[in-house]
């Protein structure tokens, strides 16, 4: 048995020690893990990943999308307005002429009734 030297200022227990052999013979080791532990760890990591996933900044791009939509819709409405035909233009000009002529001259306006 190796003598104990508590006064040794530089203990060097690198040599094979009987205590080491005794511990390896009679010391207890960790019990085996459950078979599904690795899967359980992977699931835990995946759930952490989902919690930490960055969420899109909804409050920033909703008004942008809305503005683009309104602009597109307005443009579509203007594009679809049909142009007046030549006959319609002539009728409109005649109406404007008869209506405003009474305002500008002293013509009989009895047909005009005002409520």
């Amino acid at each position, binding site marked *: 048995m190796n003598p104990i030297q508590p006064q040794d200022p530089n*203990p060097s227990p690198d040599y094979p020690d009987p*205590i080491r052999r005794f511990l390896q013979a*009679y010391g207890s080791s*960790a*019990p085996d893990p459950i078979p599904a532990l690795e899967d359980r760890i992977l699931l835990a990591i995946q759930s952490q990943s989902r919690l930490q996933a960055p969420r899109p900044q909804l409050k920033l791009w909703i008004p942008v999308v809305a503005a683009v939509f309104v602009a597109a819709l307005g443009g579509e409405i203007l594009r679809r307005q049909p142009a007046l035909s030549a006959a319609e233009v002539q009728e409109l000009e005649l109406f404007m002429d008869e209506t405003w002529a009474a305002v500008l001259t002293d013509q009989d306006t009895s047909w005009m009734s005002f409520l």
Partner: protein
Amino acid sequence: MLYGRHQQRVRSLLFHHCGDAHLDDLVQEVFLRAWKGLPRFRRTAQFSTWLYRIAWNVAQDQRRRYAQQRIQLQTLGRMALSRVEDSQQDSQGVLTLHYQSLCRQALETLKPDQRIVLLLHDLEDWPQAQIAEVLRIPVGTVKSRLFYARAAVRKVLQDSGVTL
């Protein structure tokens, strides 16, 4: 892959410092913390050393929880060893059981910092340099604790009539 490579040492460290209660949960906690801390891992240290440091921190946290709950780790160790003894009673002799009990008693007389060094080095074959890095102590301190831990265990065995 990292789990397969390192889980046994992680498990041993946790077991020798905290007993076998909630061991699977503690192992899971270690790997979860490692995954979260990967962005901060600096490649100046070995990955294994970094991982075992996390395991050491988890073990320390668990011991603090036990202290708060006033759970005797010796009791937990006794429960773990008695399970081993019960399972081996049919195949091994009474003398083996006696030595196993002596081993446990001897380890219980050690301070936690001496016990963990002794078990990691002598039972789990960790190099002294790695023990020093993981526990964040000088290699000289590892050697010193190892020396005095072995001396204490030897004394208990001698007092029980065991000559090595």
